[in-house]
């Protein structure tokens, strides 16, 4: 169940899930979508064309531009699912038109990397 819709939309794709918050500015390459923070559990993975699941965004306020750049460079996730909302990810997704939802802890725990899912914010379903 979707607990809260931050940015509306529909998406379909494979889940890429992280347990660690993301600092988009420092940790994600804005051209390729590859995570370059070697202390992050998605290190060297690409978030491009995934349904990106992570706890929440942290760090630099310019991370919002990173999200917008990822979209402009066709390297963005199809959608993002978080446990907690934050300003940087919310505003970046709003400008880039990337659907963003918050799910309950139970739902968050149930989602696994590699799962194929459809997300529709109108019906609030995954």
């Amino acid at each position: 169940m979707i607990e809260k819709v931050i940015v509306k939309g529909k998406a379909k794709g494979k889940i890429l899930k992280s347990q660690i918050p993301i600092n988009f500015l420092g940790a994600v390459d804005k051209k390729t979508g590859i995570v370059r923070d070697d202390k992050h559990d998605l290190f060297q993975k690409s978030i491009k064309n995934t349904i990106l699941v992570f706890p929440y965004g942290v760090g630099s306020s310019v991370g919002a531009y990173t999200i917008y750049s990822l979209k402009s460079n066709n390297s963005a996730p199809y959608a993002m699912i978080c446990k907690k909302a934050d300003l940087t990810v919310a505003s970046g997704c709003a400008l880039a038109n990337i659907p963003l939802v918050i799910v309950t802890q139970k739902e968050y725990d149930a989602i696994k990397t590699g799962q194929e899912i459809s997300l529709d914010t109108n019906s609030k379903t995954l």
Partner: protein
Amino acid sequence: MELTKEEESALKGEKGEVLELAYRILVATGEAINADRLVPIHWAHLSGVNYNTIGDAGEEFLSKLSKGAKVQVKTTVNPMGFDIDKVSDYKLDDDFIKKQQSISESYKKMDVVPSFSCIPYEIFDLPQKNTQVSFAESNAAIYANSIARLKTNKESAFSALASALTGKSPYSDLRQEESDSPNLTIQMKVKNSNELTYGLLGYFAGKVAGSSVRISGADNLDKRSCKALCGGMGTSGQCGKFVLDDNDNQSEKIDFDDKEMQNILDELNTTDSGDLVVLGSPQLGLEEISDLAVMLKGRSFKKRCMIFCPRAIQQQASDLGHTNTLKQAGCEMLFDCCTCLTPLIDKDDVDGVITNSIKGAYYLKNSNNVKVNLKPLSQIIDDETK
């Protein structure tokens, strides 16, 4: 979130594309931080100026936006990628210079004050207590809420931009009059603290705290330690405010001790030596420059030393003789730019950077891919000058 009729109409696009975009951002951020309405703000401070941070997509976005947009309140901006007076000393390519100038022009076209500083709280007069502002730049937002007694969300580049274009921002917990009861207290247990330990404490606090945190055992912070705390906290987390206070028995408590400190040092300190000293993340204001000039009197660095500051202090630093003292000590002062994602430090040219900044260390390590040696300023001066 409840919108007024006028706000609703702007969101629908009835007042043009710029406002439609701005309200779309404000509504999403308002939902994200559980705000029930928008409130007027009196000062916006924007991040997203350095071409290295926002790239081609950002440059094009701002160029297009600036054709039809004007800010509605006093708006200041973060550092850009270089100091125009020093560009020829660095091997920046023409494309970088061109794109950076385009970004800076776009902001000016929108009537932004070209301050290019990440410490607006030090170079502008502060409005009265509890004034609502919108500060992106995480260290500035935390400083505004915690030290300057202003009210801001820990804004993103876009939420602050949307605030500048509308004069409004979502009314979150951090903006309320009585938001002084964090549910977590961090007990500072590290002895002999200095700005490096406070930067580490901030980085730790950012990781464990929610939107605000209480810190006990950390009284009488000087400017340097205070800014280090704000910078470290802004780098690692979502936390937008700290309260320095020893009188609390209610909230959950966590210790920040030598072991926790070492864990973070192990993460960010990646070498034991370096060939370049970098100071100024956040930028150094006049107070810290004066301090540094006293510490460096009659000494000189054995290595290159870059110091990042706001242009606003250039004249005063020079009039007071500090610029000269620092120059004689072998320092290079750079204005309008800062350590974070600087194009002026290339991993192919340096073996390691020596700095006292946790924020600087994080971005030097992850974005510039250079090794970092962290030590407090007093030790940097002991070790690296003669």
